[in-house]
């Protein structure tokens, strides 16, 4: 790949992380941007915040719960002017300054259902007992009220656990807490690189909070119809800003300053996998393998199909060259770079990429950090001489146009035969017609014969829509004969049927000679078994006929012939 330098690849860094948990920032104010990754460890323990200087791990801090997102932001204007790292995890945001824990912010609690609050108050004062508490809470839940975790847990317990649980928890204040789902930053009043930024959080309760960085108070709250998953933020909080949010219901919503309710931009047909904003356009990667672009008004500009499932997308904003593009990581271990809707580069990676970030790393302006599914870390740097063509590299007629058609070849013999036909067309035609009539007659005769003897495995009688299939299993001398009977109609059940067999009784012995069938429900396949013993050891076999009879009728409805396989003799060693 000629545009990117492979700076580092470590397949065993054991990093389990996502795009939203990777960021690069100059946390020591020494001009050397560090790489900050929140590692989810194994998914249940060993979560860490890792900071890389260059290609080696600088520090590691353990985190308590799984990190949902990592950002760096300038909290204040004090010296030394270093940014803080914010890690969102559960309902908390942990702020680290100079790589040491600084502050823990807790999300504001949500409102608790007043009836529920009342109930627990009553329990605290011992005014009601646990059983009635349970009943009332259950009733609340069935009406559809959202309860706190405590009440939900309470409802799941066994009766003997209710009392200890209640006494354990009743004195603590009842709260309903939600968790953070996504995290972003927005500059507050000035647009410089090191100006103070606010934190933007999306929560599971479908809200967005804007936090003031100095006092960690909630500056604004915004509502969404569904839980936010991806956010893209631009602007200044005090002046004018825009937040574009992709939610779990597949909708994209837009927020402006002063707006409390999200305005729908567009409803996607399949779930978004990543969201980025390029200028005024919103670019979304979707689960149905497309990359789509919309204006902020909701008009679809273009849609490009990608060859494999998208795992994540990331914006590539090379400020020096003034070049903006979208990086799309695919499940076939490739990264596609799209400039507008044109594919301008394809990068191959050693493994499927799960997280990507483009930006300043170390002292390099244009580096791309990628983490892979297998836990590896890939760092690539864009060459200074790299140029991305405007043109689409996949244009032009497809190569298959140059392949010749696979027309079957005809031989001279064929041509000769056509001559023959030309000469003898009339007689050939007559002969064929003549033969055809004879064949039709013959077939019809045989058909009628078969119908008479009912030697059909599928009945032609619309009153008795049945289908019969039979199988033989075993090597002998004892075989199992399975008869499968199916009622092929939609609605008519079959009653009063009997299965019976006809066989040579010097050769075979059946353990059941008649099988009564129950009522056959339409559409289901019933199987009946009979054991057959081969009495001869001479290695000969014969056929067995299976008949399905209806009460009071002398002609069987359907029949089947089974060729019994040759029985293995009892081997005496």
């Amino acid at each position: 790949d000629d545009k990117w330098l492979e700076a580092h690849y470590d397949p065993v860094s054991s990093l389990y992380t996502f795009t939203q948990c990777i960021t690069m920032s100059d946390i020591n104010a020494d001009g050397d941007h560090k790489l900050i990754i929140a590692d989810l460890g194994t998914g249940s323990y060993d979560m860490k915040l890792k900071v890389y200087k260059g290609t080696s791990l600088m520090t590691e801090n353990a985190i308590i719960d799984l990190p949902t997102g990592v950002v760096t932001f300038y909290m204040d204007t004090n010296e030394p002017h270093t940014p803080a790292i914010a890690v969102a995890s559960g309902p908390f945001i942990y702020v680290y300054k100079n790589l040491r824990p600084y502050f823990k912010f807790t999300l504001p609690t949500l409102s608790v259902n007043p009836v529920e609050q009342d109930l627990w108050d009553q329990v605290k004062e011992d005014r009601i007992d646990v059983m009635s508490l349970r009943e009332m809470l259950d009733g609340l839940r069935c009406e559809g009220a959202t309860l706190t975790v405590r009440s939900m847990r309470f409802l799941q317990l066994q009766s003997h656990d209710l009392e200890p649980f209640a006494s354990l928890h009743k004195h603590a204040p009842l709260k309903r807490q939600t968790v953070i789902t996504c995290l972003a930053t927005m500059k507050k009043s000035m647009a410089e690189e090191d100006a103070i930024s606010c934190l933007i959080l999306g929560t599971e309760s479908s809200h967005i909070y804007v936090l003031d960085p100095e006092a960690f108070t909630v500056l604004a709250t915004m509502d969404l119809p569904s839980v936010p998953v991806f956010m893209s933020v631009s602007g200044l909080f005090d002046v004018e800003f825009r937040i574009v949010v992709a939610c779990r219901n597949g909708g994209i919503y837009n927020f402006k300053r002063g707006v409390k309710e999200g305005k729908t931009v567009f409803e996607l047909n399949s779930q978004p996998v990543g969201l980025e904003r390029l200028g005024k356009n919103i670019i979304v990667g979707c689960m149905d393998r497309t990359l789509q672009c919309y204006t902020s008004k909701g008009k679809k500009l273009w849609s490009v199909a990608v060859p494999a499932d998208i795992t994540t997308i990331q914006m590539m904003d090379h400020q020096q060259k003034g070049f903006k593009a979208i990086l799309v990581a695919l499940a076939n271990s490739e990264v596609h770079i799209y400039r507008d809707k044109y594919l301008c580069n394809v990068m191959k990676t050693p493994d499927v990429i799960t997280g990507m970030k483009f930006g300043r790393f170390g002292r390099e302006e244009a580096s791309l950090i990628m983490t892979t599914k297998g836990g590896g870390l890939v760092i690539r740097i864009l060459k200074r001489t790299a140029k991305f063509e405007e043109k689409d590299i996949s244009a032009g007629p497809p190569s298959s146009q140059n392949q010749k058609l696979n027309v079957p070849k005809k031989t001279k013999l064929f041509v000769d035969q056509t001559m023959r036909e030309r000469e003898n067309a009339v007689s050939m035609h007559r002969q064929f017609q003549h033969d055809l009539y004879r064949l039709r007659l013959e077939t019809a005769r045989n058909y009628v014969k078969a119908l008479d003897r009912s030697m059909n495995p599928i009945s032609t009688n619309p009153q008795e829509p049945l289908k019969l299939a039979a199988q033989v299993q075993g090597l002998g001398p004892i075989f199992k004969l399975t008869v499968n009977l199916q009622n092929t109609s939609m609605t008519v059940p079959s009653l009063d049927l009997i299965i019976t067999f006809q066989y040579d009784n010097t050769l075979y012995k059946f353990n059941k000679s008649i099988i009564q069938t129950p009522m056959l429900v339409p559409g289901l396949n019933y199987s009946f078994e009979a054991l057959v013993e081969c009495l001869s050891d001479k290695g000969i076999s014969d056929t067995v006929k299976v008949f399905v009879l209806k009460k009071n009728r002398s002609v069987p409805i359907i029949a089947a012939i089974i060729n019994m396989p040759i029985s293995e003799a009892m081997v005496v060693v």
Partner: protein
Amino acid sequence: APELAIFERRNWLIHLHFVRKEYDTCKVIVKEQLAETNGMCEYAVYVQALILRQEGRIQESLELFQTCTLLNPQSVDNLKQVARSLFLLARHKAAIDVYNEAAKMTEGDWEISHNKGVCYMYLKNPEQAKVCLKEAISFNRNELSYIMLGKVYLAEKDIHMAIDVYKRAVEFSPENGEVLTTLGLLYMQTGQFQKAFEHLGNALTYDPCNVKAILAAGSMMQHHGDFDVALTKYRVAAAETPESPPLWNNIGMCFFGKKKYVAAISCLKRANYLAPFDWKILYNLGLVHLSMQQYASAFHFLSAAINLRPKIPALFMLLAVALTHLDDPDNAREAYEQAAAMDGDKDPMVHLNYAVFLYNQGDRRGAQKQFNSFETATKAQGNVEIDPEMLELSSKLGPALQVGESMVWQQKAKAEVKPPPLPQVGLRTH
């Protein structure tokens, strides 16, 4: 008191793995969450149901969605998913009921209206389907609704309305290959070839491997006689779907146009082997064999085509031609009668050929009558270009009929005029 873990704490992780299609990891996390919350974490159950649906286990997925509705009866989403699962299991009536319930809870939901429309379509209630789909479009101009609405109109054979709908769809999403191709095909059906070609060309620029568009565009090129161009386009399609009967049919007819009869026959035979019930392929086979003077084979293919589709007058006409050469004038006459009766007066070729036949049989009066019908039919067609062969033949026959015993040319009017071959447009729809 110890902190109780919030039920929804892993929802974001489950969601992320789900959208990346990392279903195995997702399932593991879902299982953990369900164990931890004793099955009460709604989103985990929801995602589990979605994954089951992707794997094709729709019945199980339905049951899980129903659990979701129990956990959270206020959620419209859950109801919609239940309805969708019912739809996928072909229980359309039940699906409509659930959608109605969901509609009570929310307004202006495109998805509900659209899916209701689709269910009505399956229940063969096009009126209701149209109502719902139009409603859906008013909520959200989504190309899927347009496409579905177009299909409903097509099912009712209302081509003009369908064209209208697709036109609007094209305005809305100009790059959608399916919409462009369908619109192109509809224009072809109504005879507006220029527009059709334009749209098909567009479809091909966006997706050069779109087999449907290639077939349609190729057939139009064949109409104009550009056989070589059509063949190059077909090569692309052949690389994509090597066993497509309409493709081989069209390729065969290209060769026929280039007068390579043997190649034409082998392609057509392959098409026939792959799709024995397709009357168009049989028709073309009959036609080619007639040109090769293999009348017995021609008869055989044409009679097969007639058995499959008894209402096409052109088939009877060709059959009659074959019979004429097989020395069976009585049946030939019958066939011509059938053709003429079925056709009314629309196709002049039937009458012309019948006229020639009758003339050769010595039935002057009948021939004259047919010739008159031929003239009326030609005039009725207006300014459609008349086949030069037809003109030539008619000019010879005309004077022969009016002239008395002495004729300019003595031999039998051998050349019957053959209608243009039938290229096939669009893929076989199952």
